[in-house]
C-alpha cells in the first residue's frame, strides 16, 4: 500500500494535544472552576484547529492512501510499531471526534452535571478525546487496542460519577461488557500476528498477508474481532449495556457515546476485520446482515415500548447502527460508503437528540414522555430543534440521516457477488419496514412531547412541581428556552445536518476512493 509521509507530526499533535491541556489543568487548583473551563475549551479549540489544518492539508486526490503516515519503533519486543496514518475512511471520523469534543465543552460551560467538579469532568473529556482520535489514526493493531482501551476508564467514571440514579449499575455493565469484548479482540489480534508469520502488527502489512490465512482459521479469528467490535457498536444481541449506559450517563457522556464511541466498533469492522480477513468476511457477512436487521427491528420496537425519552433515543441508536452494519455486511462500495456516512450522520443527529434530551431534563427534571407535553408552546425554539432532529433521525430526504439509511438499503439489493442475493433482498425489505417503524416511534415521541398544551405541573408560575424537584433545581426554576451556550454548541451540528443532507457528495467523495479500494478484493 502506498503511503504519503508528509507532515507526519500532524496526527500525533492532533491526538496528544488534549493531554497537554490535561497536564496544565492538573496543576490548577480545583476551585478555579472558570479557569478550568477556559483551559479545557482552549485545548479543545486548539485541537480542532489542528484538525482543520489536517482537513486542509489532506490530499483529496489520493484519499485512498494513508496520509501523514508515520512509522517508528515502539515496542520492539512484540514487533509493534507506532504506525499512524489517515485516509478517506478515517478522516471524517477523526475530524468529527474533535468537533464533538469542542461542542460538548461549550455545552459544559454552564451544564456541569451534579456532583460538579469541572476539573475532573473536563480532564476526563480531554483524555477521551485522545483515545478517540488515536483509535482513528492507529495503523497498528496493538496501538489501536491501546487507544481503544484508553476510552474505557474515562467513560466508566463519567457515567459512574456524574450519571443518573442507577449510574453504578450502568457503568459497571458498560465496563464489563467492553472489557469482555476487548479481551476477545486482543486474542484475535494475537492470532492474526501468529498466522501471518509473526512479523508485524501493522495493518497495511496484515492486509497483504491476511489473505493467506486458511479459511477455517480466518473465520475463527474474525469471530473474536466480531464480538469485540459488535459489543462496542453495539449489535444485537450484545446491545444490552447501551440503553442503561446512555440513560444513566450525563448529557455530555451520552453525546460522546453516541457520536463517537459507538463508531469505534463499526470503524473496527471497516478498518481491520474486513480488509485483513476478506475470506472470513464473506462467510460472516450473512450473519452480520441478519443480526443487523434484527437490530433494526428490535431497536425500533424497543423504542415504541419506552416511556423515557433518553432511553428511547438510546434504543434508536441500536436501530440506526443496525443500518450501518447492514451497509457493511453487503461488502459493496455503496454499502460501506453508506455505512460510513451513516456513522457520521448518526453521530451528528443522535448527538443532537441527546443534547435536546439533556436540556429538557435540566428544565423539567424528568424525561418521562407521559409528563412532557406542549414543548412547542413552552419552549418553541427547543421544540422546533427537537422536531428537526427527529425528522433528521427518521431519515427525511434532504437531511443527513437519509444518506446513511437509503444507500444502505439500496446496497442490500445487490450485495457483493459472493453473497446470497436472495437473503440480502429479504433483509432489504425488512430494513425498509424498519424505516417506517423509525418514523413511527420518532413522530409519536414528538407528538406526545411537543404538541398539545404544556403540562400544568411545569407551568412557570405555579410551583406545583416543587415536591420532588425543588431540592435540586436551584436557579433553573423558570422554564426558559434555548440559552446562548446551547445555541453555540448546537448550531454547528444543525448546520452540518443540513449541509450533509443537501450535499452528501462532500463526504462521499472523500470516502469513496478508499472504500472502492477496500472492496476491490470482493469484485474479483
Amino acid at each position, binding site marked *: 500500500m502506498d503511503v504519503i509521509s508528509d507532515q507526519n507530526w500532524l496526527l500525533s499533535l492532533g491526538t496528544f494535544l488534549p493531554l497537554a491541556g490535561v497536564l496544565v489543568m492538573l496543576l490548577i487548583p*480545583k476551585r478555579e472552576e472558570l479557569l478550568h473551563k477556559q483551559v479545557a475549551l482552549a485545548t479543545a479549540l486548539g485541537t480542532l484547529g489542528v484538525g482543520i489544518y489536517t482537513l486542509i492539508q489532506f490530499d483529496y486526490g489520493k484519499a485512498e492512501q494513508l496520509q501523514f503516515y508515520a512509522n517508528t*519503533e*515502539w*515496542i*520492539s*519486543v*512484540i514487533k509493534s510499531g507506532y504506525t499512524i496514518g489517515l485516509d478517506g475512511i478515517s478522516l471524517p471520523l477523526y475530524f468529527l471526534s474533535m468537533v464533538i469534543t469542542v461542542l460538548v465543552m461549550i455545552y459544559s460551560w454552564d451544564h456541569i452535571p451534579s*456532583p460538579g*467538579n469541572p*476539573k*475532573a469532568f473536563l480532564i476526563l473529556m480531554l483524555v477521551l478525546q485522545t483515545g478517540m482520535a488515536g483509535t482513528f489514526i492507529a495503523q497498528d493493531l*496493538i496501538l489501536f*487496542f*491501546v487507544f481503544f*482501551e*484508553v476510552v*474505557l*476508564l474515562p467513560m466508566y*467514571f463519567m457515567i*459512574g*460519577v456524574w450519571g443518573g440514579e442507577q*449510574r*453504578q449499575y450502568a*457503568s*459497571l455493565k458498560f*465496563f*464489563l461488557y467492553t*472489557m*469482555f469484548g476487548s*479481551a476477545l479482540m*486482543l*486474542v484475535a489480534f*494475537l492470532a492474526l500476528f*501468529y498466522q501471518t508469520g509473526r512479523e508485524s502488527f501493522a495493518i497495511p502489512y496484515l492486509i497483504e498477508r491476511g489473505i493467506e490465512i486458511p479459511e477455517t482459521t480466518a473465520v475463527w479469528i474474525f469471530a473474536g474481532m466480531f464480538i469485540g467490535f459488535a459489543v462496542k457498536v453495539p449489535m444485537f444481541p450484545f446491545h444490552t449495556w447501551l440503553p442503561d449506559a446512555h440513560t444513566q450517563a450525563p448529557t455530555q457522556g451520552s453525546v460522546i457515546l453516541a457520536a463517537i464511541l459507538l463508531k469505534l466498533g463499526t470503524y473496527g469492522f471497516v478498518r481491520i476485520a474486513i480488509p485483513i480477513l476478506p475470506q472470513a468476511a464473506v462467510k460472516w457477512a450473512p450473519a452480520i446482515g441478519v443480526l443487523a436487521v434484527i437490530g433494526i427491528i428490535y431497536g425500533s420496537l424497543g423504542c415504541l415500548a419506552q416511556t423515557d425519552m433518553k432511553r428511547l433515543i438510546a434504543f434508536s441508536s441500536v436501530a440506526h447502527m443496525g443500518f450501518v452494519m447492514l451497509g457493511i455486511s453487503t461488502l459493496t462500495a455503496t454499502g460501506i460508503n453508506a455505512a460510513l456516512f451513516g456513522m457520521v450522520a448518526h453521530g451528528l443527529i443522535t448527538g443532537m437528540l441527546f443534547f435536546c434530551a439533556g436540556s429538557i431534563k435540566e428544565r423539567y427534571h424528568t424525561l418521562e414522555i407521559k409528563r412532557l407535553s406542549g414543548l412547542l408552546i413552552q419552549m418553541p425554539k427547543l421544540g422546533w430543534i427537537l422536531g428537526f432532529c427527529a425528522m433528521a433521525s427518521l431519515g427525511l430526504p434532504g437531511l443527513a440521516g437519509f444518506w446513511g439509511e437509503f444507500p444502505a438499503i439500496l446496497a442490500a439489493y445487490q450485495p457483493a457477488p459472493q453473497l446470497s442475493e436472495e437473503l440480502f433482498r429479504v433483509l432489504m425489505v425488512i430494513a425498509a419496514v424498519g424505516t417506517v417503524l423509525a418514523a413511527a416511534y420518532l413522530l409519536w415521541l414528538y407528538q406526545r412531547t411537543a404538541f398539545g398544551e404544556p403540562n400544568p405541573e411545569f407551568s412557570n408560575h405555579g410551583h406545583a412541581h416543587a415536591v420532588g424537584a425543588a431540592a435540586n433545581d436551584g436557579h433553573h426554576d423558570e422554564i426558559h428556552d434555548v440559552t446562548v451556550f446551547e445555541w453555540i454548541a448546537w448550531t454547528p451540528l444543525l448546520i452540518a445536518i443540513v449541509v450533509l443532507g443537501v450535499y452528501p457528495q462532500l463526504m462521499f467523495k472523500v470516502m469513496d476512493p478508499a472504500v472502492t479500494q477496500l472492496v476491490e478484493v470482493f469484485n474479483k
Partner: protein
Amino acid sequence: MIASLVAAAGDFTAPTVDYHALAPEIVLAVGICLVLIVDLFIEERQRWITSTLAGFVLLGALVPVVTLAVIGGDVRNALGGELLDGRYVVDEYALILKALFLIAGYVVVLMSSDEIESGKYHQGEYYVLLLSSVLGMVMMASARDLISIFVALEFLSIPAYMLAAWNKRNSKGNEAGMKYYLLGVFASAILLYGMSLLYGVTGTTLLKDIGPAITANGQFSGVEALAVVFVVVGFAFKVSAVPFHQWAPDVYEGAPTPITAFLSVASKAAGFVALTTMVFLAFPLASDVYQPFMWVLAVTSMTVGNLLALRQTNIVRMLAYSSISQGGFILMPLTVAGEKGVGESVLKAVIVYLVVYAVTNLGAFAVVIAVAKKTRSGEISSFGGLFSYAPALGVLMTVFLASLAGIPPLGGWFAKFGAFKAVLDADTNWGYSIAVIAALNTVIAAAYYVTVMREIWMKPVPDGDVTPIRTPSSIQAALVITCGATVVLGVLPDLVARFGDLADLTGAIGR
C-alpha cells in the same frame, strides 16, 4: 597447627576482585554499618536522620549500577563481570534487577519514614534490617551458584522475618513474624535438601555446570527429578504460589504496611529472580519435570488468589491475595521456558512483569498508607468517597489498580500482554490452555479492582468526615516515582524489555 595454617595460607591466591562490579554491594554494606553507628550517637528526636541516611545509601548504591549499565557488556566482562569463576555475575539481567531492588527499597524507605517515626521505636534497627534485606536481594540478582543463591536467600529472608514482627505489641504482628519465620525456615530446609541432591548427582554447585550434568547419562533419574521439584517448591514458598501461600495474607496483614509492601514486591521478586536463574541455567534439560509442575502452580495461584481476593473486605488482605494471583501470572511464562525458541520472550516477560508489578504494587501500598493515616482503617469501605476529598490520592489509586487489572495504557497491560505472548509463542497445548485460564482470570481480577475504584469514585464517604488528607512529603515522593514509572512503562515498555537478553544470561547454554 598454626604452622600448617600458615603453610596453607601460603598457597592461597586471592581472586581478582573487580571493585566496580561489586560497588553496589560494597556501598550497601558500608551503608549498613554507617546507619548502625550513627544510630548509636544521635538523640531520640534526631532519629529521622537514620531514614534519610538509609535513603541515601540506597540511592548511592544505584549509582554504580547505572555506571555499570552504561559502560556496556564488553567492558564489564573485561573488568571481570564474571567474578569467582562465574559464580557471581554482573550482566544486564543482574543490573536491571539490582536497580529494581534498590529503587523498591528506596520507595519502601520513603513509605516507612513517617509510619515508623509514629511507632516511636527502633528506627535505626529497622533501617539496618531493611538495608540488609535489600543487600541480600542485590546479591541474589548476581548469584549463579547454589551456595551464593542460598546465602543471598537467607540474607534477604532473616531480616524480613524480624521486620514482619515489627508491631511487637500487637498480637497480629507477632503472629505475622512467627508464621513467616516458621514457614520460611521450612521452605529453606526443603530448598536446601533439593540443592544437596543437585550437588550429589552433579558434583558441582555452579549452575552452568549443573545444567548439562542433569540427564548426563541420557535419562532422568529419580533423584534428579526430586531435586528439581524440591528446589521449585522451596522458591514457591518464597513467591507465595498456591498451595504454598497460606502464610502470605496473615503476614501481610500483621506486618507494618511498608513492610507488607516490601515483602509482597521486593522479597517476592527476589524469589522469582532465583527461580528464573535456576530455570534458565540449571534446568534447561529438566523442562519435562518443572514445566508441568510450574503449570499447576501458576494456574492454582492465579485462580485461587483471585477467588479469595474477591471475598476480601480488608484492602491489605485483598492486595495480598491479588499479589498471589499476580504471582501466578509471573510464573506463567516460566511454564514454557524450556520450549524451543521461546526463552527470549519468556525472560523478557518475567523481567517486565517483575518491574511493572513492583512499581504498581508499591504505589498501591503507598496510597493505602496515606489513606490509613486519616481513616485509621484497612477496610475497603474506608476508601468510600476518597475522590471527593482527596482527588489526587483517588486518581493515583485508580491508576495503580487499573494497572494491576491490565488496562492500557498503564504498565500492567504490557506485563500481562508479554506473559500471554510468551506462552503463545511456545505453540504447545500447555501454553494455549494456560493462556485461556489466565484470560479468564484477568476478567475475574478486574472485578475486585473495580470494586475499590467504585468505592473511591462513586460511594459516599462512610463517616462523613471530609477533611483533606495531609500526605507526608516522603509518601508524596514515593507516589510520584511509582505513578510515573507505571505510566511510562505502559507507554514505552521497551525501556525495560530490552534488558532481558537471553544470550547474556545463559551464555553458551542459550538455545
